[in-house]
């Protein structure tokens, strides 16, 4: 069961422009973690900033009992987080939310990540590989310096292509254009995506066009993280007046399940 844990900060390093990797020892939380879920963490011991911040599970090492996060400084909360020293403790709730699902095994799946949206896809890729899927990752960002997750995917031994305007080797352009080039020829069993909403909207559009199933991971401001406050509402795509909770019904949704734009 998800619980509250004082996790030990093992390391917290800048790995790219405004991008940080933090490793946490969280032995209580780790056994429950599934790809696509998130932890909800306190970035300050005072009342400002007040609310917890949700961050995806970037990687989980069940043997070592550690969680790794990849985060971008987006404001005050993540800025404070980036100043957290190794050796200190951080209060985490989790794992929370609906994880990615696994389609019928044996097929090739494609993961499309944009910017720091790559975060939930690494742990997903790891589990997909373990379960024997054919995994192909398309990973884009504004600039090549931000492609900080690349070495970790390479270490996994997964097939990965990168996209950025300033790439020497790799695709010079948007990751969605790269997807467009790759999507038609291949026999894709399932699409996973996380990144800026316009990017995910594009992925969802291709999925519709090629009649592919898939999942995305959404963001929304959160308070409770457990479905109690109804603060993180998003509209369902097919109904007029029904909202879902990103924290509890998501953050993972079917590609055609919610409105993205």
């Amino acid at each position, binding site marked *: 069961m998800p*619980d509250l844990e004082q996790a030990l900060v093992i390391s917290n390093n800048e790995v790219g422009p405004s991008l940080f990797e933090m490793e946490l020892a969280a032995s209580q939380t780790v056994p429950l973690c599934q790809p696509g879920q998130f932890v909800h963490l306190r970035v300050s011991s005072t009342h400002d900033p*007040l*609310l917890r911040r949700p961050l995806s599970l970037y990687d989980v090492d069940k043997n070592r009992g550690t969680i790794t996060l990849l985060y971008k400084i987006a404001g005050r909360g993540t800025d404070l987080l980036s100043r957290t020293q190794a050796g200190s403790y951080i209060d985490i709730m989790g794992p929370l939310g609906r994880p990615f699902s696994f389609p019928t095994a044996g097929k090739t799946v494609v993961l499309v990540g944009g910017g720091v949206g790559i975060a939930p896809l690494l742990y997903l890729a790891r589990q997909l590989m373990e379960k024997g899927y054919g995994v192909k990752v398309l990973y884009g960002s504004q600039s090549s310096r931000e492609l900080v997750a690349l070495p970790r995917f390479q270490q996994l031994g997964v097939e990965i292509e990168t996209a950025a305007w300033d790439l020497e080797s790799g695709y010079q352009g948007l990751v969605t254009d790269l997807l467009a080039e790759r999507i038609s020829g291949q026999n894709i069993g399932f699409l996973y995506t996380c990144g800026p909403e316009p990017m995910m909207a594009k992925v969802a559009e291709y999925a519709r066009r090629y009649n592919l199933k898939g999942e995305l991971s959404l963001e929304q*401001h959160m*308070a409770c993280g457990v*479905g109690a406050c*109804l603060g993180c*509402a998003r*509209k369902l795509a097919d109904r007029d007046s029904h*909202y879902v909770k990103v924290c509890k019904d998501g953050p993972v949704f079917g590609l055609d399940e919610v409105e993205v734009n």
Partner: protein
Amino acid sequence: MPNKPVKTNQVDMSVNLGGLHLKNPVCTASGTFGYGSEYKDYFNPALLGAVTVKGTTLEARPGNPPPRIIETPAGMLNAIGLENPGVDVFIEQYLPELREQGVTVIANIAGNTPEEYAELAKRLDKADGIHAIELNISCPNVQQGGLQFGTDPDMVYQVVYLVKNNTQLPVIPKLSPNVTDIVAIARAAQQGGADALSMINTLMGMAVDVDRCRPVLANVFGGLSGPAIKPVALRMIYQVYQQVKLPILGGGGIVSTQDALEFIMVGASAISIGTGIFVNPLLPCEVIDGLEEYAQQKGLSRISDLVGIAHHKKVFSQ
């Protein structure tokens, strides 16, 4: 206050909130604890004085479009828009689990007209497992052109009176702080027959996204909660306690045992925790323990001996 030697005396933590018996003074605030099961991984809701469930209305409400919440300095704004499945679904789908767990349940109701409040009370009165009804009167009265019930003493009187006539349960109007004279509102509630008062609801506020030059919340306005509003809540409870003889369920910004003590000392018989639980899901349990410890240290036999003590010139006669 004299420094007494610490003896681990037994403290009676129970309180009486206008006929509603609470095993301890710590309750959750409506809308922050769902229907009581969302936080069950963290603690058993039956340990609480009471669970106040999410506000319910006659018909289902979709709620407001997002964004619905935004953080503010030491607080947050919410504009959920009373999203809920309607009172009948609440009674059928959510209440049974609460009842089986032995949770003390305070229902929270909201209507567009006084008659809707009365009808809601009637239906809840028949349901098994509800222990009191909290009236959210910070809603626009459609018959009065959208003026909030809670800002006009006459409307407060009318709603409370009608509800009282339709239920045997203790009735606890929840006062809006967005008023000039909170005591006048409290008096009107008392005259209407209120058994206790709940205070305070959120302060109305807003925030602007300066990059987009637009209000952050889709609804423009939202309710401000959290530590930021604590000084206002304490002041209003202090004023009402002085002038109106009704027990008070006090809250607004409680995030620690010390905060809870402040509320009790200005006159709250019980306290409610809302936003604080988002920050620390174990807070209600920590406050229950913390209050007991404080009472022990002060050598009190009942937690209720602390209620309103900030009004007395001399504290702890012993």
